[in-house]
């Protein structure tokens, strides 16, 4: 990998100051900054090749359609999907999971079926499934056994048999604990039990090598904005034979074959699931982000962020009164922590003054935090452009804040 000091210069937002310090952007689990290559690609698309897609017969719209569909092919390559038809563009992970839950709730899942989740799911992979309760679909949860994020995946079998589980949906990487779940193993287990599987890859896409072929999942969702792409674009991957069984989600133009006043028929996937004018510019940006990340090298990104996180976790551990969540080993680039007697909000307000941008809150993980007796944590999350010096500044600033509040 090119050294992070050098990669930083690809990201215009990172060269700004914050409260008189160089900005240390440590909120990458919420969203990532954008490299110039992505901003350039989107701009140049709008300046040269922009038109609406799919139905135009003139040159400009042929080019726009080709650019949009080539983004779909690029995503298919990136995920090692069997074909571009398995790639549905959405606004992000949240919409991808809503689409799947809504469509599966009317097809793959029957009244009385169960969906198995874990206690560490982001609200995006929990609330859409709760909405299916009114259809008689029941939710079950694999418990998280400790603050390290340990889940006993052996329990899947027993729960699946007892509760007529049809689908297992789990997060690849926990956005609050930094726990990495063994996705390939879990999906193999699901398949052997006859369960469908959904991987929430919001925190892993663009942060490590990610292959649906290797993982063996049936569905996978991610957001572009967490991997260098603009906001408003994301992906639902689904195995073709399953997508063929799913009814549409949103309806309108572009997704219909024939419309009569009294009824309509649908196109095949993926267009069936993309009603209306899509986020064309977003898809172009996502393609550019994938290009950028693959040039940097995803294995290197994974190694770099994991090494920063474990450096941060061990450095922070020496601060009196600190409590660090998440696994001791094999931690993704995320460290959540709380400081005794200092509320997480006060903590990050102080860190902000030192130019350190961290998030405090429930990280859309209320049930998990509640289980740990917490309402909020502070969270540092890293990406390819973060530096060891930034971690050093973080550790020092947390200690300084502790002293300030200790009075």
């Amino acid at each position, binding site marked *: 990998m090119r050294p992070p000091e050098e990669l930083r210069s690809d990201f215009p937002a990172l060269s700004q100051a914050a409260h008189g310090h160089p900005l240390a952007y440590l909120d990458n689990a919420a969203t990532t900054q954008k490299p110039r290559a992505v901003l350039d690609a989107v701009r140049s698309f709008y300046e040269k090749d922009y038109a609406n897609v799919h139905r135009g017969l003139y040159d400009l719209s042929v080019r726009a359609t080709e650019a949009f569909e080539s983004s779909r092919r690029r995503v298919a390559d990136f995920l090692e999907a069997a074909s571009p038809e398995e790639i549905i563009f959405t606004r992000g992970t949240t919409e991808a999971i809503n689409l799947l839950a809504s469509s599966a709730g009317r097809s793959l899942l029957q009244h009385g079926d169960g969906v198995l989740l874990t206690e560490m799911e982001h609200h995006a992979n929990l609330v859409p499934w709760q909405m299916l309760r009114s259809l008689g679909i029941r939710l079950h949860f694999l418990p998280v056994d400790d603050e390290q994020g340990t889940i006993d995946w052996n329990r899947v079998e027993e729960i699946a048999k007892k509760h007529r589980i049809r689908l297992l949906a789990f997060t690849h990487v926990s956005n609050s604990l930094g726990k990495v779940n063994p996705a390939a193993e879990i999906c193999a287990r699901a398949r052997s039990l006859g369960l469908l599987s959904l991987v929430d890859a919001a925190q892993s896409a663009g942060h490590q090598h990610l292959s649906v072929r290797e993982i063996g999942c049936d569905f996978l969702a991610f957001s572009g904005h967490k991997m260098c792409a603009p906001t408003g674009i994301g992906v639902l991957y689904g195995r073709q034979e399953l997508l063929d069984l799913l009814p549409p989600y949103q309806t309108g133009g572009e997704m219909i074959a024939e419309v009569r006043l009294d009824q309509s028929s649908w196109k095949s996937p993926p267009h069936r699931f993309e009603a209306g004018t899509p986020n064309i510019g977003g898809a172009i940006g996502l393609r550019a982000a994938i290009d950028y990340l693959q040039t940097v090298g995803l294995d290197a990104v994974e190694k770099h962020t994991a090494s920063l996180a474990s450096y941060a976790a061990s450095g922070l551990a020496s601060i009196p009164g600190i409590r660090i969540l998440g696994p001791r080993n094999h931690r993704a680039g995320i460290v959540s922590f709380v400081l005794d007697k200092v509320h997480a909000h006060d903590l990050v307000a102080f860190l902000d003054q030192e130019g350190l941008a961290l998030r405090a809150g*429930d990280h859309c993980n209320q049930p998990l935090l509640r289980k740990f007796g917490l309402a*909020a944590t502070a969270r540092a999350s890293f990406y390819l452009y973060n530096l060891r010096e930034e971690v050093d500044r973080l550790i020092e600033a947390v200690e300084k804040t502790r002293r300030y509040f200790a009075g």
Partner: protein
Amino acid sequence: MELDELYREAILDHARHPRNFGALEECNRSAAAKNVSCGDAIQLFLRLSPAGRIEVVRFSGSGCAISTASASLLTLAVQGKTAQEAEALFEKIQRLLTGTSAPQDELPGDLAVLAGVRRFPQRVGCAMLSWHALEDALRTGEKNSV
């Protein structure tokens, strides 16, 4: 440091040693307020005299330094006031913190230390939390379940 403006010494003192903290069993008004964006939650308990004067006021819950200090200051400020006077105070602090009144329109007494929040819009919700609970407790005639 800019933040000293927000975390004045008095605020830190109230946050570390909140006054009138703990539930009040014998209250005749109470309300809870929750900041959905951060999870901070405050319960406020009042005992109003038949004439409508606040005889006792206490709070419980957990929150950041700003919301805790603001609740603690609230209890001192409204003690002994009539419901109308307390409501007027609520409106004054809301106007001041959300910037719809001029800064020279100062808050009375100890509450003045909250003026620093004005410059941190993301923390106004924290400072207002207990005040919303107060508003709620005064407006709804009967004791609420908290």
